[in-house]
């Protein structure tokens, strides 16, 4: 009967899953990364992995006499079309359970980080995110009842750190730039309702209050919506000096710019680092950014501003990939560099020692970002924000703001 055939096939499939997996030799060090490699954030994670792999290649495929391997895990599933909480947990456990894994780079989404952090913390495996900027992953927010970030640190040790400045840097400094450079007095704020976008928009609004900038309104869009003509027409009626959008390229940052041009709202548009990429200007079009002044912000520096090792990285990246690196590529590179340096220092496969070495990173200058350290919470001390004018790719840095 057919049924028997199916059962056999099913059993075979299940068996290979139960048994399958990877053996690892004793002298291999694995650096695992967990990023949404499929679905909508694919473009950015591609550049992160490019940067990461450059760092690994530079060390010649080995570190401290051990073979080096990169395990590229995907935390997105088809069923969700983007990052998936259960999948991110799986990846964290997979890394935690593989004795060869010495560091976990990722994730990309702050929401995903909340899922992997407790597992990696318990396993004592150091985690370096190249892109998560939500404040609560590392620091307690005044008035917050949820107990974050301590609930992610059950072991009492800090295992999560990030090489990108958090939203406390980006949101508020964007407001400072808006006031000082653009002279904005009345702003309207939109966000994409995602953890990242609404978080950064909230911090922007808060700082506006402190600086005496009037916030005319705040609304959320849905990224699957086709156009925002109606939303922009409404905003135009309020006549703002600046529109701030907390969101990313794939959550329709470019569409906002397009509809601003279409509806004749020509005040500047300001977007955070989720839009700091080539595909933002590709999707918005040069005609759009000519009509609507667009400013994109990125924590740290624009690749073109990097000096020394950073400039070298940019040159090599261009050589290899035939294009200027995206802002995120630098963070992928930096995260891998920090890890490799720590493993080199420790010289053996000892997660706890490597964790300590990573978190003790001080005045690190072997990467591309210049000199910086980790603070006790795992945040970078690089608290500067670069604002660039979007006129094509690469973006033109206008000013670097610091606290």
């Amino acid at each position: 009967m057919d049924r028997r055939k199916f059962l056999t096939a099913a059993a075979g499939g299940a068996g290979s899953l139960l048994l399958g997996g990877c053996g690892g030799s004793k002298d291999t060090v694995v650096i695992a990364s967990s990023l949404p490699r499929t679905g909508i954030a694919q473009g950015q994670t591609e550049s992160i992995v490019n940067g990461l792999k450059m760092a690994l290649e530079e060390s010649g495929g080995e570190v401290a006499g051990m073979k080096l391997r990169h395990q590229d895990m995907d935390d997105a599933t088809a069923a969700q079309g983007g990052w998936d909480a259960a999948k991110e947990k799986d990846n964290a456990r997979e890394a935690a359970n593989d004795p060869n894994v010495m560091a976990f780079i990722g994730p990309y989404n702050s929401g995903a980080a909340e899922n992997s952090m407790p597992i990696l913390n318990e396993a004592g495996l150091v985690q370096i995110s190249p892109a998560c900027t939500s404040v609560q992953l590392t620091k307690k927010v005044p008035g917050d009842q949820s107990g974050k970030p301590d609930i992610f640190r059950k072991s009492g040790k800090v295992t999560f750190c990030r090489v990108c400045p958090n939203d406390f840097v980006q949101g508020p400094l964007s407001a400072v730039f808006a006031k000082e450079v653009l002279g904005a007095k009345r702003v309207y704020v939109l966000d994409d309702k995602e953890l990242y976008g609404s978080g950064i928009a909230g911090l922007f609004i808060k700082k506006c209050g402190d600086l005496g900038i009037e916030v005319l309104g705040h609304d959320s869009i849905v990224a699957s919506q086709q156009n925002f003509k109606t939303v922009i027409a409404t905003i135009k009626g309020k006549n703002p000096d600046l529109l701030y959008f907390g969101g990313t390229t794939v959550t329709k940052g470019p569409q906002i710019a397009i509809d601003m041009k279409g509806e004749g709202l020509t005040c500047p548009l300001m977007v955070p680092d989720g839009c700091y990429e080539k595909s933002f200007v590709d999707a918005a079009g040069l005609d759009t950014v000519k009509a609507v002044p667009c400013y994109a912000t990125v924590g740290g520096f624009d690749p073109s501003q990097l000096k020394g090792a950073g400039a070298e990285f940019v040159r090599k990246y261009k050589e290899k990939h035939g294009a200027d690196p995206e802002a995120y590529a630098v963070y992928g590179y930096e995260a891998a560099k920090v890890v490799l340096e720590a493993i080199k220092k420790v010289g053996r496969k000892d997660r706890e020692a490597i964790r300590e070495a990573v978190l003790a990173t001080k005045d690190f200058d072997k990467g591309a970002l210049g000199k910086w350290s980790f603070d006790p919470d795992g945040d970078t001390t690089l608290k500067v924000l670069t604002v660039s004018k979007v006129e094509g790719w690469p973006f033109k840095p206008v000013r670097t703001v610091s606290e």
Partner: protein
Amino acid sequence: MSPGRYWVPALFVLLAAYPFLPVAEPNRGEQFTVLFVYAVLALGLNVVIGYAGLLHLGIAAFFGIGAYTVGILTVPYFPFGQSFLVAATAATLAAAAAGVATTAPVLRLRGDYLALVTLGFGLITLYAIRNLDAITEGTKGMNPIGAGPVPGVAEDADLSGWRLFPGWGVRWYRYPYLYFLALGVLGLVMLFLRNLERSRLGRAWVALREDELAAACTGLNPARLKLAAIAVGAGLAGLAGALYAIALQGTGNPQGFDFTLSMTMVCCVILGGLGNRPGVLLGTLLLMGFDRVATNVLDNLIQEHVGSGGPSYTKVSGWKLMIFGTVLILMMRYRPEGMLPEARHRRELHEEPTKPV
């Protein structure tokens, strides 16, 4: 007779023993836990589509209602602080009630209109979850959700000492508790549905699905039967949602309760064998297992032997939707009754097709 007679119990025994076997991969247990949860969800949907014949395209809504009920009842910043048993019961009841309340007014719609209404209801629920930040924390998701103890089982029970032989078994995190909880619930749901199928209600559903008019003529009340199916199905979906929230210790991304999940579940049910419990179980384990487990394993193998990175078409995960879609198309073409068809449904498809008039 029943195709599930021997292999289903055998599968359960195998899964229960799996963590103790030497072949156990450390991470599979947690991945399987989530698969069990989705299997409960699919079995719930099967009650609605397979037993009662109502095409429901919004089952994810009840999954979400279940998860968020547990969230509200257990997270520390709400004053309820209930245990798992209370929360899961409440989640089941809340989802069942939501199912009845949203279906009752639209029962008189015929097939495809009803499908669209259920789809719409699913979307409304999703946006309510996303937008009512004061209750649901919006896109942040509610966490942490403490699993809370089932009486007699400590939440962090460490079963690492339970080894058949030294060197066997795996390193455990939290999962002995959650793994066996989910597997146990799945087993109970299977038993419950088996008995339900054989009950008066189950036979009435068969009559309803085969011919609504004839069923009504024999004195059955179609509306009441449909509502019963929705109540059971939505309740099971709510229970699955409760387990999901507990297994994740949070509700995760609200996008996890969207239309894509509803549709994937419909595919699991139909691919496995509409109306047939063991088939639905197998369909879900294979389809969701492919999405969540197999692509990872394959990608890792490729990475180990070929190297990592490269554009998305060099990775299995980049082809995921393509493979998924092709499997659906081929299955429907060559085996539309599903992998393990229900006997009646199978006859229907393989006898001389009678054209609907």
